[in-house]
């Protein structure tokens, strides 16, 4: 149990002034139904047993905490440890949440599963758990992302789900979310919406965080075993923020651990072409929650820019906004070119090819390791593996297959 200060959200779904339930009336009952189901099940022994059994036998948890020796030497001071979420079944942290939410869907008797996806990892993770239970599954994906993540699109189709390319707006993750919400409004009686990040209306930011916080819980034990103390810093990339929230949350009450979220700086914060609302946004309401947003002075949501489809989102989970405002977590940004450089560096030095999203977290090690003492233990959350990004990276490097 967290101390009272961190035991959020409150009953209305707020983390301080962030969060809430800003949805059309038709969805209110569905959110209440979900919240009631979750509150009833979450601490029940049989539910916990089923969830942790799936995490261990289907996902392959716990994921290792791996000492990155050559990367540590490369930076010359401190020890860099990798929390290997890339080794999970389907290749990213996203599966932790979908394994949990599909259990909720099963208990609620829902026959139809929908989800939005950016990089495609959440789409794959959702299609995977739906296939396992034999449930009809529809994945909404921005048409732009369908193009740049064609490998994951095909994986989703192989898993028996239908991919709906979304053309509206900017044809990226935010528009996929819009379309998934519209599907849910229409088919609310028999449909379960598995939101893939700590975003959206209450209770989603709480549920997704809770299911993903298995990552941070494991890390507490692994840190003791590996270096006999708590980490000096944890670094994670932040788009919607689910991998970061999952690893941060169990550490919120451990003040000696710095929590550092890395947003997508795109072409650079000063150019305005980025996806870093915590660095350069203002509070507003989008997709059911109040949080920091990329918006213009009229409250219109701005286009975002990032080489990484999974970070290319104008909002961020409300709990991150709150952690930023109370000063418990730090949020920085890393540009496309720095992330790409880190992608190559980690692949070559460690034999681990990170997702472009994850590469943003790695790219911040440069400035971070310089300011930390040689005794520091730093954990990078390796949120996903990079196979899905090979086409994007090859294209940037001018290589045609």
């Amino acid at each position, binding site marked *: 149990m967290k101390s009272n200060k961190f035991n959020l959200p409150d009953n209305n779904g707020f983390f301080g002034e962030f969060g809430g339930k*800003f*949805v059309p*009336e*038709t969805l209110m009952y569905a959110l209440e139904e979900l919240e009631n189901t979750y509150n009833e099940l979450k601490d029940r022994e049989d539910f916990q047993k089923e969830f942790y059994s799936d995490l261990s036998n289907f996902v392959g948890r716990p994921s290792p905490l791996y000492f990155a020796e050559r990367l540590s030497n490369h930076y010359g001071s401190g020890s860099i440890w990798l929390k290997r979420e890339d080794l999970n079944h389907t290749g990213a942290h996203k599966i932790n949440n979908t394994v949990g939410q599909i259990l909720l869907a099963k208990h609620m008797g829902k026959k139809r599963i929908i989800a939005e996806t950016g990089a495609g990892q959440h789409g794959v993770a959702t299609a995977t758990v739906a296939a396992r239970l034999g449930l009809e599954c529809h994945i909404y994906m921005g048409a732009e992302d369908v193009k740049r993540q064609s490998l994951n699109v095909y994986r989703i189709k192989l898993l028996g789900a239908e991919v709906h390319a979304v053309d509206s707006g900017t044809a990226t993750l*935010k*528009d996929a979310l819009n379309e998934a919400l519209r599907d849910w409004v229409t088919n609310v009686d028999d449909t379960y919406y598995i939101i893939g990040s700590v975003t959206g209306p209450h209770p989603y930011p709480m549920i997704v965080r809770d299911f993903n916080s298995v990552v941070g819980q494991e890390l507490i034990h692994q840190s003791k075993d590996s270096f006999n103390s708590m980490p000096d810093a944890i670094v994670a990339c932040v788009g919607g923020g689910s991998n970061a929230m999952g690893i941060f949350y169990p550490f919120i009450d451990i003040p000696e651990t710095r929590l550092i979220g890395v947003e997508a700086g795109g072409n650079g914060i000063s150019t305005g072409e980025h996806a870093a609302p915590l660095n350069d946004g203002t509070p507003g*309401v989008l997709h059911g929650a109040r949080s920091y947003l990329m918006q213009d002075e*009229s*409250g219109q949501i701005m286009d975002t820019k990032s080489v990484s489809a999974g970070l290319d989102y104008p909002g961020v989970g409300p709990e991150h906004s709150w952690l930023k405002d109370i000063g418990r977590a730090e949020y920085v940004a890393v540009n496309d070119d720095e992330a790409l450089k880190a992608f190559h560096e980690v692949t070559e030095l460690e034999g681990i090819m990170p997702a472009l999203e994850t590469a943003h977290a790695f790219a911040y090690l440069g400035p971070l390791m310089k300011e930390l003492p040689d005794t520091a233990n730093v954990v990078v959350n390796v949120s996903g593996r990079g196979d899905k990004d090979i086409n994007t990276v090859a294209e940037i490097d001018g290589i045609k297959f």
Partner: protein
Amino acid sequence: MNRLTTTLNNLKDNNQKALVAYLVAGDPDLDSTLDLMHLFVESGVDIIEIGVPFTDPIAEGPTIQKAHDRALKNNISLKMIFDLVVEFRKINDQTPIVLMGYLNTFISHIDLVESTSIIDSILVVDIPGELSLKDYGITNPNINTISLISPTTTDNRVELIAKNSTGFIYYVNLRGVTGSSNLNIDEIKNNIQKIKKHSDLPTLAGFGIKSANDAKMLAECSDGVIIGSSIVEMINESSNSKEFARIGEYLKEIKQAIS
């Protein structure tokens, strides 16, 4: 008493049903919107509902989404919509105007909303109905809070929402986005009766009304109807010629059907 309450009271006294017509401000351009607003009134429309364009209109079907996109290409802001209504009010000071949109655009221009006397109500699609506009800093006494009640609204929420509403209650006819089809008249009838137990306010029915016949059936179990997507579609079809007379004929036909 504001224009909306006056109009709804008059309709009730004369045993008439309300016709509410929707368009998106700035689609295809602001001059056309102004012309259309006057055409609406000439064609029997009692209340004008102006859609405030937003980049992420989650409750809208494809027809109205595209209208929002077209308006945003014209850089339509809430300020420009208020200026448009100023122009409209130079000729018409009676017809109530409801702004329908999403919370983020309204809270970004709260100063405009707080000081207006030319707008009569704001309908925010994405705020929970048990909260009122006051909870978001909108305290202007001239502004009515119109809340939505849908087929999935539970009984205890109907009571809470009814208590918080002023002006009228907007009953959403179906599970779905604007412009959907398949109206279930029996369900609508039952739900509106349920609302009536908790509120004396007029209850108007919207979403999915595509013809004069739909409007006629719904007017029989409600205090009026709201027509949106079918008008927006016709506006788009005439966006080059700017000949909107056909829309006037359509609205007259609906007004006739619900009278």
